[in-house]
C-alpha cells in the first residue's frame, strides 16, 4: 500500500440493524481490499452494538476508531415531508474523535437513534468498483475521498463524506 493513497470512506444510514449488517457482510465479502469497516446499531431498548473489522489493526495502522469516525450521522433524513407540509430532516452529526471502539460505541450511544444503525467503510479509491456496489440497503449514503497519509486521508475522506451527507439532507 502506498503511503499517500486516495482513500474513500462510505457512510450509510439504516433503519434496522439487519440491513446495516447485511451491507457490512456484503462489503466484507465483496473481494475488495478494505481498510476497515464498522457497523454500529442501537436496539429499541437502547442497547448498542458495534462491530468492526481489524484490517487496519492487523496492518499496524491506527484502526478506524482512532481516526474519529462520525457516529452522529445515522439519524437518516428520510422523511421529506408529511402530508400536511412538514419538512422533516435530520442533519449529519459533528465529527467526533475516539480512541477506541469502546469510545466509538460510547459516542454512538449518544447519537444513534433507537432502532437505527450505521455503516462506515474505508477503502482505497482503486477498490471502489468492488466495494460500493456491495452496499445496497442504505437509506442514505455518501462517499468521501481524500489524499494524504493514512490517518490524514481517512479523516479527510470521512469529513468529505459527511459534508456530502449533510448537503443531501439540506
Amino acid at each position, binding site marked *: 500500500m502506498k503511503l499517500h493513497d486516495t482513500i474513500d470512506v462510505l457512510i450509510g444510514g*439504516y*433503519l*434496522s*440493524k*439487519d*440491513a446495516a449488517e447485511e451491507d457490512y457482510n456484503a462489503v466484507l465479502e465483496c473481494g475488495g481490499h478494505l481498510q476497515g469497516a464498522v457497523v454500529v446499531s442501537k436496539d*429499541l*431498548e*437502547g442497547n448498542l452494538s458495534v462491530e468492526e473489522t481489524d484490517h487496519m489493526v492487523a496492518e499496524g495502522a491506527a484502526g478506524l476508531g482512532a481516526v474519529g469516525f462520525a457516529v452522529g450521522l445515522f*439519524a437518516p433524513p*428520510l*422523511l*421529506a*415531508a*408529511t*402530508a*400536511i*407540509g*412538514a419538512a*422533516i430532516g*435530520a442533519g449529519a452529526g459533528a465529527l467526533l474523535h475516539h480512541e477506541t471502539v469502546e469510545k466509538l460505541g460510547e459516542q454512538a450511544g449518544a447519537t444513534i*437513534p*433507537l*432502532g437505527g444503525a450505521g455503516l462506515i467503510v474505508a477503502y482505497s479509491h482503486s477498490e471502489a468498483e468492488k466495494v460500493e456496489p456491495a452496499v*445496497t*440497503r442504505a*437509506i442514505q449514503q455518501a462517499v468521501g475521498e481524500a489524499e494524504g497519509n493514512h490517518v490524514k486521508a481517512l479523516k479527510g475522506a470521512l469529513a468529505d463524506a459527511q459534508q456530502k451527507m449533510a448537503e443531501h439532507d439540506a
Partner: protein
Amino acid sequence: MSQPDRSKLPIQSAPFGGVANRTLDGSKPDWSTIGHVDVPDGAPNVLVVLIDDAGFGNPATFGGPIETPNYTRIANEGLRYNRFHVPALCSPTRAALLTGRNSHAVGFGSVGEFSTGFPGYTAFVPDECTPIPRILRDNGYSTAAFGKWHLTPDGQQGPAGPFNRWPTGWGFDYFYGFLGGGASQWDPCLAENQKIIGTPEDFYDEEDPYYLPDAMADKTIEWLHAIRGQDAEKPFFAYFSTGCSHAPHHVSEAWAAKYKGKFDQGWDTLREETFARQKELGVIPADAELTERDEAFPAWEDAPDKLKAYYARQMEVYAGFSENADHNVGRVIDAIEELGELDNTLVIWIWGDNGASMEGTITGSFNELTMQNGIPLTDEMQLQLAERYGGVEAWGGQMMDPHYSAAWAWAGNTPFQWGKQVGSHLGGTRNPMVVHWPERISEHGALRTHFTHVTDIGPTILDIAGIPAPTHVDGIAQEPLHGVSFADSLTDPAASEHHTQQYFETIGNRAMYKDGWWLAMKTARIPWVITPDALKPYAPGVWNPDDDPVELYYLPDDFSQARDLAAEHPEKVQELKELFWAEAEKYKVLPLMAPLAGFFGMLPPLPAAAKHEFRGDVQNVLSGMIPRIYNHSYTISADLVIPPGGAEGVIVAEADHLGGFSLFVDDGKLTHTYSMMGVFVFRQQAEEPLPEGDVSVRMEFAADAAKPATGGEVTLFIDDRPVGKGRMEHTVPVRFSGYAGMDIGRDNGGVVDRSYEDRKPFAFTGTIKKVVFDVNPHTSAEEAHELHAAEHHGHTAHALSA
C-alpha cells in the same frame, strides 16, 4: 291471535283486558300485560356477516386465492350474488346496511370519526331514520353486534357518550367489539355495551394470547347460548362484523404460513389467475374482460427483486388473516347448526364493505398509520422498519400494524378497476354476497345476477320477517327506506330486478347507475395520496365536478367495466350526469367534497379546553379522544406520592411502540419516551431519582415552532427543577394510533417503551393524585387557529383512510 300495530314503535301495549277490583275478589288478570312483543309468525333468525376491506376477487368462493371453505359451503347450500354493491368506504356501507337508507341521507357520507357541519356528513343518524336493529328489537328480536362498529363519532367514544351514537343506541341489546374503524387483533381497545373495557386480560397470556377474531366468535356463541337458555323461541338478529381484513393485518403464523410461496408470482399474474378461476366457477360471465392495470400501480416485474419476498409476505399474511375470518364465521354458523336452527336462519354474508383497501400505499407499511400521518417511506425503508420490529416473518404478529401494498388490493378486486374510496368504479363498489336459508332456498349453489345494493339488506330482512318499516318511532315520523327487498329472488331466479337506480359518491368519486348503465366520474386524486398538493384542485372555486372526465359502461354487457362507451353515447352521459345531481340533492350528498371542508378553511369551533385533568386511574381513553398534543408545545404534569423505597411504573401512556408516548419511572428516574410512529423513537431520562413523599413532576415539550410534525426540546422537571432533557427531532402530526388507548398509571396493551415490555402493563407502584395536560402553553390566538386548521387537516387525512 291478533297482530299488534307495528307501524309505530315502540309497539303500544294493548289496554288491560282483565278486571281489577278493590280486592282480588272478582278481579281477573290479563297475562298479556307482562308478556313481550312477539315477532310475526315465521320470522327467522338472522345472521349478517360483514367482512372488512376485502375485494370481489379475494375469497375462493368467488375465484380468489384465499381459501374460504365456510363461505363456499354456505354459498353451495345457498345463493351467490355477483352484482351486489356498496359505497366505497367503511362507515357509509355500515350505515346503509343498518338503516336501509343511503349513507349520506343518514349522515354518513364519510367515516364515523369525522363530523362536518353538512347534513350528509354529520356522522349522526337522524331520528327520522331509525336503524334496522332498533326496528327488529322493538318487534321482538334479540339483537347483538360483534366486532367492528365505526359509526360513533370520534369525540363521543367515552363514558360521557352520548350513547345513542353507540351500538346499543342503534338498537342492539348487546355489543362486544371496537368502536373505531380498525383495531389490533392482538390488543384491541374494546367496548362492551356502553363501556370501554380496554385490552382483554388474555393479552398478557403468552402461551395462549388473546385474538379478537376468536373472541368475537366465542362471544357470539356465548350470546346465542345465553338467549336460548332463557327463551327457546325468540329469534335473534346477530351482526357479525369482522375487523378482518382491515389493517392492521394480524394473524398467527400458522395461518399465514399456509400461503407461503403462493404469491411469489406477483399481483399481475394473480389477477390473471383469479380471473380464470372466476370464469371457471361461473361467478362472472363468460364474456367478461379483465380490466387493465392503471399506471398508478407498478407492474410486478418492475418491483425490485430484492423486495419481492417482502411484498409476497404482505399478501400471505392478508390471505391467512382472511381465511381465519372465514374459519371464525364458520364456528358461529356451526354453533347455530348445533342449536338446530340453521335451517331457519337467514344468513347474509357480505365479503367486503368497500373493495380491498389501497391505503397501504404502493409500498405497503409496517405501520398502517404512517400513511395517515403522511410519512413518505420507500419500500426499502418499510422493509427495514419491518426488520426493526422482527423482520418480515413477524409481519402479522404483535410487533407491527401492517398494511399490504395497494397493488395487492387491486389484485383482490379482480376483475375490476380500483378499490376502496373509489366510488366511481366497481373495484370499490361491488363485493360478493352469499345468502343462505335452507328453509326457503332450494336452488342450492345457484347464482343470482340481480343488481342489489347494501341498502336492500334491511328491507329484505324486514320483508322476510314480516315486519313493516315503521311510519313513526318514538313519535317521530320516519323517512321511507331507500333500499328495496330482494327477498323474491331467493326463491325465484326469474324475479325481476327491483333496484334499478343508484347513486354512488365517496370523497368526490361518484357514479350514477340506472337500468344497466353506469356513469363513472372519478377525480384525478389517487386514493392513497392525501398531500396538500393532491387536494388543492378540489378547493372551492377551483373544482368544477362537471369538468371531470367521465366513463360510461353498460353493465349487462360489460360485467367488469372494461369498455368505455362515453364517446358513443353522449346523450346517456348527460342524462346520467343530471340524474346524479338530482339524486345528490335528494339524498344530502351535497356539497361534494364536504369531508375536505376543513382543508379549505371551514373549521369547527375551536375547542375551549386547554387543560385536561385526569384523576384516579382513568384508563382506555380512545385514541381520538386524547388531549391535543400534536404540532405544538405542551406539558404533562403529575402530582405523585412516592412511597419509602421509591416507586416505578407508568404515570401516563398513550398507545404503543408504533406511535405513542409514555411518562414513566424506571430505576427511580423520571423517563419520557416518544415514538414517532415507530420510525423515530426518542427517550429522555432524569439524571437523578425521584425523592420520596409528595412530588410534582413535569414533562415540557418546547416546540421549535407551532407547525405540523414540529421538532422541539424536552425538559423533565421534579418540583419545578429541571432534571433531564433531550431533543425530539420529529413529532407525530396527526394521530398516534387508530385504536390504542391512553392510560393513567399503567400502559395497557402493547407498550410504548420496549424496555418495560417484560413488566407490562408496568403499573405505577406509588400514588398518582392527578395528571394534567396543558395543550396550549405559550400559543397565540393566531397560532391556535393555525394549529386548529392543521389538526383538522390531519383529522381529515385520517378520516379519508380510516
